[in-house]
């Protein structure tokens, strides 16, 4: 959306530190705020002592894993969105909008119904297969990103693919009330009730995916110049796309398995990041990771505050916050006369 070259490298370096500080701040809020508010001093005490006091149990067993999981999932969604946009050279390419998340969701439901897979680790494997299948279908349909598919076409195809997958999932879960009952709490996208086991299962996979993203930076920068120029620079275009695509699929599928299909983070965060960094992926990906993590943890905190003593799931908050942000960006680009 934005063609501005962004800030200078020195400014970007300071910006990264500021973004980290913002992340630390929202994580601290995530530890302090909840059904029972804890003063920050108590949180620090609980983190230090790790004893059997109420505060320590709340912080260590509930809020810390949940908040860290939120940060990791947010980073994965932000980076996944930025990379998907780079691969397809398409500003609307958000894995959630394109049906990749729906593919992962379908695989998880089928796995649970047909093969009784309910543990998280095999679910991640199953979700990755589903996300890869959906991603491959989308890429094949839209000419592997070098056909110059208009953004709206890509989004419409993605939504239609999602609609198909959602219809299949609905039929499956409607056959069994118990599956539906579990499915609906996961479908909305939530971090509630995710404990330490979830975090320790998911964290290595997400960190692996983020590391794979780092190796894809050069290829993505070359792809941004167009396929012909990229080839001239000695980049193997198809291989770069596939490598980056695999990282996107791993990040998306793991995030979906851990927290459900959360929309809008993968769409909003890369655009916000790109407005700061410009098109270079070496800066864009770290900024997307930090902003995504901050956004998701902040959304989770907001969801816990607005509906006390209950909570609003993080997926609802990101939809309600994300949609106006996307619309605002559309407005700004329209004013600048830029064709999306």
């Amino acid at each position: 959306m934005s063609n501005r070259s962004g800030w200078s490298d020195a400014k970007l370096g300071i910006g990264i530190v500021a973004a980290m500080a913002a992340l630390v701040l929202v994580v601290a809020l995530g530890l302090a705020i909840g059904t029972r508010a804890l003063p920050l001093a108590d949180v620090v005490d609980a983190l230090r002592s790790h004893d059997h006091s109420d505060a320590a149990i709340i912080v260590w067993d509930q809020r810390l894993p949940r908040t860290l999981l939120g940060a990791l999932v947010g980073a994965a969604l932000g980076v996944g969105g930025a990379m998907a946009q780079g691969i397809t050279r398409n500003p609307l390419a958000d894995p959630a909008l394109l049906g990749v998340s729906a593919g992962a969701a379908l695989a998880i439901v089928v796995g649970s119904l047909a093969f009784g897979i309910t543990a998280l680790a095999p679910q991640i494997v199953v979700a990755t297969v589903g996300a890869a299948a959906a991603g491959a279908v989308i890429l094949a349909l839209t000419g592997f990103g070098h056909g110059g598919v208009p953004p709206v076409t890509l989004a419409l195809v993605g939504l239609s693919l999602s609609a198909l997958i959602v219809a299949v999932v609905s039929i499956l879960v409607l056959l069994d009330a118990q599956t539906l009952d579990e499915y609906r709490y996961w479908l909305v996208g939530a971090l509630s009730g995710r404990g330490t086991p979830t975090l320790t299962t998911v964290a290595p996979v997400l960190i692996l995916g983020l590391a794979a993203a780092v190796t894809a930076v050069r290829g993505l920068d070359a792809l941004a110049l167009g396929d012909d120029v990229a080839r001239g620079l000695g980049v193997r275009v198809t291989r770069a796309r596939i490598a980056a695509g695999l990282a996107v699929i791993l990040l998306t599928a793991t995030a979906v398995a851990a927290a459900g299909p959360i929309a809008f983070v993968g769409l909003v965060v890369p655009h916000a990041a790109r407005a700061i960094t410009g098109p270079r992926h070496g800066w864009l990906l770290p900024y997307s990771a930090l902003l995504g993590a901050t956004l998701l943890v902040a959304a989770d905190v907001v969801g816990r505050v607005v509906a006390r003593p209950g909570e609003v799931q993080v997926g609802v908050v990101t939809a309600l916050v994300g949609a106006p942000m996307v619309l605002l960006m559309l407005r700004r680009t329209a004013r600048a006369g830029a064709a999306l």
Partner: protein
Amino acid sequence: MTVVRSRAVRQRDGEAATLARSGPAVVLRWRGAGVLVHPRTWAVGAVLAAVVAALCIVALAVGTQWLPLDDVARGLVGEAERATNLTVRRFRLPRVVVAVLVGAALGLAGALVQAVTRNPIAAPDVIGVTAGASFGAVLVLLAFGGTTFGAGGAAAELSRVGLPLGAVAGAFVAAAIVLGLGAGKGPSFATQRVVLVGIVCHAAFIGLVHWGLTRGDVDQATRAAAWLVGSLHGRGWEHVTGLAVALALLLPVALVLGRSLSALSLGEPSAATLGVRVRRTQLGVFLVAFALTGAAVAAAGPVGFIALLAPQIARRLVRAPGMPLVASALTGAAVLLAADVLARLAVPGVELPAGAVTALVGAPYLLWLVVRSEGQR
């Protein structure tokens, strides 16, 4: 590059052939007034109407209990056995009428949206209105559909009456948001922006629908999830009335707008020189399409892909320039009827929701359309 060029040439030849095959247009003159008539359009319309009629008869005859045709005929006029009369007139007939009306409304709405956005894969399903209507309906189900109130009590009655109202209200809110934010300023609508804003609103409303599903108890969630697939199961005459009124009011408006719409297909500046009020026409087309969608969703739930596919099928049948509105409506009716019959027969003993069939059949067709147009580019 050579491959691409030869594809372009082939496409040009294909278009020329289509025009040649579309047959001559005839000008009917009467006292100085003239109308351009495409005989093929009328012929296709007649055939489609016959197909719809035939499918209606099939839909009346098949089901858990198969009825011979003469029983169907006698049941319709109320002169068969009591049980047959009941099956045909009380259960199957309203369902068939709802299918025809919903299919026609969706087909027409899709044709209007595709014509005004000049985008063959745009449809009200994915630009926010259907999702808004779904959210409205789910809210009503949550508010009044609670089993705690006792089934068959006042609450159940309220949810039965309120559900279509909630859907229509949700559709209006979504339409207001999409058109308000997408319209922009200037002599014409930025229709591309309407689609973009619609996609974003669709995603946001789907998020809200999912939130709604987590709020109620498991019975409410099941009912809402079943409704969200889109089905004709158990639809009665009370669903027919609102829909019939909506179609009776909106179809003539759509046909009047259709004339300006074909001028718009030449491009907005050309249409303006021809005396078309571009912005007003575009707004009217969107409003009519969204109202039709809201009425259809209120009656049958968000049945997917009909609005997307019916106009494309109709366009290929009619082969005239512009978007055939009546043929799209008839095609929509035929597709939904066929889908409902298939949904009742596909798995013996189980009735699938019609929306599941339209999605399973419609999505691959849409994807094939996209692949083909990619190949032609």
